[in-house]
């Protein structure tokens, strides 16, 4: 993005992607004593942008006149790469998109491919998927809460949040063998059967976690510095958010009870009892309260999944699509042939196009998958929630003070890997 450009933006649409600095410079030259604005370049290495977001801020004193986000620093061409990979290989790419919510990404990709294939997923796999995506939500919200608090100046919350997050990562490691890039959900079910002793690990965690949430709330909710920095900050109207494509907790903090898990249930979410927390204040503090309440609801869902976990197979009955059991592969000729063919050739997916969306910790995560009947996706478009949410930044921070930018950005909870893909 050019810093100084003469092309003015369209004022009617409220779009301020370009900063018009030259205009003000000329004004200053011709009329001495006129107010001069300053352009501040924030990022891409600014710690509070949580990654590589660059913001250009045009300031009049401490007031922001214009803001222009500049993204693309973390673009890795994942959508192009999908087209060169077999369907089952694509799962590993999805982890790397939103690296704080890898299992939500696995899930949406698998659901899209399964929709095209018309696969029936056994209940055990569905419930495990629900349980682990809720763990992902906890994981992501904990990182958000810790870093958001540290941005505003509360150091200890960060340490407490990462203590619990560590335990969640250990649970991920127990299930999948990986802490972050899990790739545990595969097309047709799960990568591995449940590990031994997982119930105790999960139970220990959810028994203690609600008291840990109380601990964070004790540190923050009534804290005068915290409320002073967050209440009434970062307001943006609900109409603007809908028009700008915002989704997730931001909408719920503005009073709209919109949640993909309720509106279009996937993977058996309709069988779980949980509430969609909403607030109406529509500021940074309300978004904090909504996410904290969501953590409590996620804990409830995990408890239901743990207590009602069905028995059965962890993979669908689809011999040409899911890899055969290791033991069968070593003893039966047919299983060996299937194994060889799936790994080397992949499987054909019927022609068609689907759009699958799930509720990721950040909002609506969508996967638009086009198949041309071959073993590789023809086109995969990733509708990352952070990309949609980031568009609302100028509207949210223009006219506010520069000190509030950090709080407003943090309340959005974006991940640049998800934005840039």
């Amino acid at each position, binding site marked *: *993005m*050019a810093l100084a450009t003469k*092309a003015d*933006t*369209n004022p009617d*649409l*409220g*779009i301020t*992607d*370009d900063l018009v600095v030259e205009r003000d410079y000329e004004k200053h030259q011709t009329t001495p004593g006129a107010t001069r604005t300053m352009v501040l370049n924030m990022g891409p290495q600014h710690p509070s942008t949580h990654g590589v977001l660059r913001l250009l801020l045009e300031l009049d004193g401490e007031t922001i006149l214009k803001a222009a986000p500049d*993204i*693309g620093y973390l*673009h890795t*061409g994942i*959508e*192009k*790469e999908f*087209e*060169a990979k077999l369907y089952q290989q694509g799962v590993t790419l999805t982890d790397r998109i939103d690296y704080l919510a890898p299992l939500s990404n696995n899930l949406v990709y698998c659901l899209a491919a399964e*929709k*095209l294939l018309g696969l029936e997923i056994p209940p055990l796999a569905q419930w495990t998927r629900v349980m682990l995506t809720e763990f992902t939500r906890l994981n992501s919200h904990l990182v958000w809460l810790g870093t958001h608090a540290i941005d505003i100046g509360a150091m200890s919350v960060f340490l407490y949040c990462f203590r619990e997050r560590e335990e969640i990562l250990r649970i991920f490691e127990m299930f999948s063998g990986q802490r972050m890039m899990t790739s545990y959900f595969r097309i047709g079910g799960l990568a591995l059967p449940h590990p031994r002793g997982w119930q105790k690990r999960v139970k220990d965690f959810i028994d203690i976690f609600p008291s840990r949430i109380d601990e964070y709330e004790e540190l923050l909710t009534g804290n005068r510095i915290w409320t002073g920095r967050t209440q009434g900050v970062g307001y943006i109207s609900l109409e603007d958010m*809908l*028009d*700008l*494509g915002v*989704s997730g907790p931001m909408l719920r903090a503005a009073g*709209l009870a*919109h949640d993909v898990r309720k*509106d*279009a249930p996937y993977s058996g979410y309709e069988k779980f009892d949980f509430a969609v927390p909403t607030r109406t204040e529509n500021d940074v503090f309300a978004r904090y309260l909504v996410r904290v309440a969501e953590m409590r609801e996620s804990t409830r869902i995990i408890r239901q999944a743990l207590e009602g976990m069905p028995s059965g197979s962890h993979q669908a009955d689809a011999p040409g699509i899911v890899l055969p059991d290791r033991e069968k592969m070593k003893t039966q000729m047919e299983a060996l042939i299937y194994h060889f063919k799936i790994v080397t050739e992949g499987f054909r997916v019927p022609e*068609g*196009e*689907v*759009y699958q*969306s799930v509720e990721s910790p950040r909002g*609506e995560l*969508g996967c*638009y998958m*086009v198949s041309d009947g071959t073993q590789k996706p*023809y*086109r995969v*478009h990733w*509708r990352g929630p952070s*990309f*949609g949410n*980031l*568009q609302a930044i100028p509207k949210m921070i223009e006219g506010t003070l520069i000190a509030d930018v950090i709080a407003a950005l943090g309340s959005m909870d974006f991940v640049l890997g998800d934005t*840039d*893909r």
Partner: protein
Amino acid sequence: MLPESLTTYPTAAALADLATGGKFEFGELTVEVAPENILTALHRLKHDLKFERLSNVTGVDRYPAEPRFEVVYHLQCITGKERIRVKARLSGANPEIESAVPVYRSANWYERETFDFFGVRFLNHPNLTRIMMPDDWEGHPLRKDYPMTGYRY
């Protein structure tokens, strides 16, 4: 022309005069419109049929078929819990379509992304520049005739 089978869907029926095709597959409704009618269709969907949110805008390259590009819009009606996919096909020689920004402001970045990756030009877009690739990048990476490894190697 809207296929006979789609006339039972109220959303599709409301677009019947603009539709050039459509289908209902995998529980998802798709309506195709001519590129010159895209703004009329989106405007009607937003204001008359209450599709409040545009989820995304993206492209599909059908190279070497003609018309080569598909521009795909996913819309969502939050109150009615409904989704629709609107599609317009553009020729490979001159991929141009009216920008959806006057109807949905969220189209802004999605159209920049589609321009960046496919080279589809959105007319009357407020700031049609590259968003992911560097400003001086040559070519449009998601086109099917753009090699996987890029041109530099």
